[in-house]
């Protein structure tokens, strides 16, 4: 649009270079965590499940911490977080196959094992990190913040997140069937392993992208689907879009409070 310019260069710079990428990041991260939380809760038939169930957050923490330990750039830190997050989930999915037990319980137990293993590695990295600079950076990264999000990060990760979220929204009726149980879903004509695998992969990619953008942020992926359930009920056809939008709204408001409430910025996990 060609509007009459009634603003200064400084105003345009503050909006376009700082606040717009940050709020776009908040929108994407909140929506992604909430949508993947709703997906996992539907798939595992457990309302206490959060998006980091399969170890993606702890894996991403290890990747980012390792990159900080090796003095890498912020882009390399984000990439390391993404790769290690996905690698952790790969280990989680491989363990049930190794024991030839593809049940949901085995998958959840494998997630707990991998999360514990990754937490142990994170402990080692913190132990050997330089106390003055690296340890502080690692701790700050694990608390989560959107302060360092730039326009190029959004352009890099945003399209992937939007496409994956769209896939999840399109298959939301299948998650309704999967939440009935494996045998019922199979009798209704659903290819259970394929549908469940697709939903898990999509939810995991969403979580990994969110964590690589802004570090680990708990709570959103667990609570927002519950708030969505209060508003629109259990049906995933309505619950998943409502959860995603509620998460995005919540994160936009929380990030604005976090950057304005005090003189210095409050990390988002707090």
């Amino acid at each position, binding site marked *: *649009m*060609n*509007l009459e*310019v*009634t*603003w200064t260069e*400084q*105003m*345009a710079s*503050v*909006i*376009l270079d700082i*606040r*717009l990428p940050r*709020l776009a990041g908040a*929108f994407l991260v909140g929506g992604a965590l909430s949508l993947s939380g709703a997906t996992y809760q539907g798939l595992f038939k457990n309302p206490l499940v959060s998006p980091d169930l399969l170890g993606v957050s702890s894996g991403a923490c290890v990747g980012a911490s390792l990159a900080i330990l090796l003095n890498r750039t912020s882009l390399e830190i984000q990439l390391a977080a993404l790769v290690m997050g996905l690698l952790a989930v790969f280990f989680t999915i491989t363990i049930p196959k190794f024991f030839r037990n593809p049940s949901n319980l085995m998958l959840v137990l494998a997630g707990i094992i991998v999360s514990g293993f990754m937490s142990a590695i994170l402990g080692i990295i913190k132990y050997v990190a330089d106390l003055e600079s690296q340890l502080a950076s690692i701790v700050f990264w694990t608390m989560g913040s959107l302060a360092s999000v730039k326009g190029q990060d959004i352009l890099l990760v945003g399209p992937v997140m939007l496409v994956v979220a769209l896939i999840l929204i399109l298959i939301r009726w299948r998650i309704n069937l999967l939440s009935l149980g494996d045998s019922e879903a199979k009798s209704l004509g659903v290819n259970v392993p394929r549908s469940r695998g697709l939903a898990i992969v999509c939810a995991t990619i969403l979580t990994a992208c969110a964590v690589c953008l802004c570090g680990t942020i708990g709570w959103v992926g667990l609570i927002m689907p519950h708030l969505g359930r209060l*508003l*629109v*009920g259990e*049906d995933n056809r*309505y619950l998943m*879009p*409502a959860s995603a*939008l*509620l998460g*995005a*709204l919540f994160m*936009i*408001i929380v*990030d*604005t409070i976090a*950057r*304005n409430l005090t003189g210095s910025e409050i990390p988002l996990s707090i």
Partner: protein
Amino acid sequence: MGNKRNSMAKRATITGIAVAIVISFVTCLSLGRYHIPVWQAAKIVLN
């Protein structure tokens, strides 16, 4: 009839949340230590 009304209410709720996102997005753009009026922030983004 009841089901149709129910699903319409759910769709209206989702639309309401989407509208709330748009409003809060523009409002949050203007908030900060360097305050910019909401209409000015919206114009900068639209431009």
